[in-house]
């Protein structure tokens, strides 16, 4: 399908925090209580509209199990946005956030927009991590924060779309070089004006960067 931009997202976090369920809720608008273990990575895609422009989100839902850690690291490369997910009913998944964040920062480009997500907000009675703690962590590390529920779909759309908005703003500000695919952004085929001007003005720059 035609799109103006394509953003690559990755979803990361401990096993069982609901990464695949978030993706399923966002792409298919349904919830599956029992989900098969993700092997390596699964993919999802959806079109959204920001500022009147069609944007395709290409989402990489990575495996959370430790044995896949080295494999999932190769998926970080070229991602424009990351959803870092923990489970509000399991304190250990929150405690592991720093490791995940270090991993993400180390293996991706520095401009990647990271959204911190406390999932399973419907399970209020079993909550182990306060919302304020999530907010504090996000503030400390410069992330956007949201609590979601893949089950009730609360905030799921917002989480994905707000991240896209943030990336879009960064493009407008010129932080992202959209011609460099390592940034996780592709320009769609039906973007004749931008495409031609950009490839005209920045193509040479890009090639120059490539050779050194």
């Amino acid at each position, binding site marked *: 399908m035609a799109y103006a931009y394509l953003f690559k997202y990755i979803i990361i976090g401990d096993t069982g925090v609901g990464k695949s369920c978030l993706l399923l809720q966002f792409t298919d608008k349904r919830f599956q209580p029992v989900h098969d273990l993700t092997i390596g990575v699964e993919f999802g*895609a959806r079109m959204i509209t920001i500022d009147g422009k069609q944007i395709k989100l290409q989402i990489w839902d990575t495996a959370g*199990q430790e044995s896949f850690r080295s494999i999932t690291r*190769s998926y970080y490369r070229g991602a424009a946005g990351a959803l870092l997910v923990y489970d509000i009913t399991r304190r250990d998944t929150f405690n592991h956030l720093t490791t995940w964040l270090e991993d993400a920062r180390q293996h991706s480009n520095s401009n990647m927009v990271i959204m911190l997500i406390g999932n399973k907000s419907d399970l209020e009675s079993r909550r182990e991590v306060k919302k304020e703690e999530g907010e504090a962590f996000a503030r400390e590390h410069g992330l956007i924060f949201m609590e979601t529920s893949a089950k009730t779909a609360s905030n799921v759309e917002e989480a994905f779309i707000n991240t896209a908005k943030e990336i879009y703003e960064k493009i407008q500000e010129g932080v992202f070089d959209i011609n460099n695919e390592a940034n996780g952004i592709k320009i769609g085929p039906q973007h004749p004006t931008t495409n031609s001007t950009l490839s005209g003005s920045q193509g040479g720059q890009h090639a120059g960067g490539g050779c050194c």
Partner: protein
Amino acid sequence: MSAHDQNSSVVKKFQQKYWRTKQTLIKVSGRKEDEHVVASDAELDGKLEVFHSIQRTCMELLKVTEQYQRRICNFSQEENELGVFLRAQGSRDKTRAGKIMQATGKALCFSSQQRLSLRNPLCRLYQEVETFRYRAISDTWLTVNHMEQSRTEYRGALLWMKDVSQELDPDTHKQMEKFRKVQAQVRSTKTSFDKLKNDVCQKVDLLGASRCNLLSHVLTTPATPIWMLPRNRAELRCFSLLLCRQTRPGRG
């Protein structure tokens, strides 16, 4: 079409073998393995250590029991010979010293008999541990071997997946096809490895518990003669000593 299918399945088999061999080489040559993969098997490796310790200590216990048994036999024989000798010498000596010698000889003969009675429970212990080793340990060992084979398959598949993940684009059909193939391989090897991993953990737990059970059962039964023996011997010594004192020269 079918020739093509056949061809691709041959290629797949070949690739599987390649990655399995690669993993085997990494393991055999002792090269550093993926730390995360190793860490995710920490529990299993802990259980394997317990298993190897059970294996080793059972073997040692068998050896020690065997030696103990042999030494008891030798000792008992010597003791008996000394007893017989003292009794023979005592019967020739008509003084009180002869009587003492005879009494001591008798006590020694008796004690040597008592000592021999330790052999039975020791033999039973030996047999029980031997059976345990032969049945339970070797059974677990088989499962451990299966698990190790399956672990090599799984880790080989992970290497393969890591390799195809380097350049992955979900919008490229060909790459995705390849990735799905590897993913299916990882999934199937993971399923069988996880099952065997679980089997090993459970079997090792069971093995440890049943060994405790075996030892506490076997060791409480023969404990009686072991503890009886010194007391009897002590009594016998006391008796001999008493006789000695009574017949000390200058007194009588």
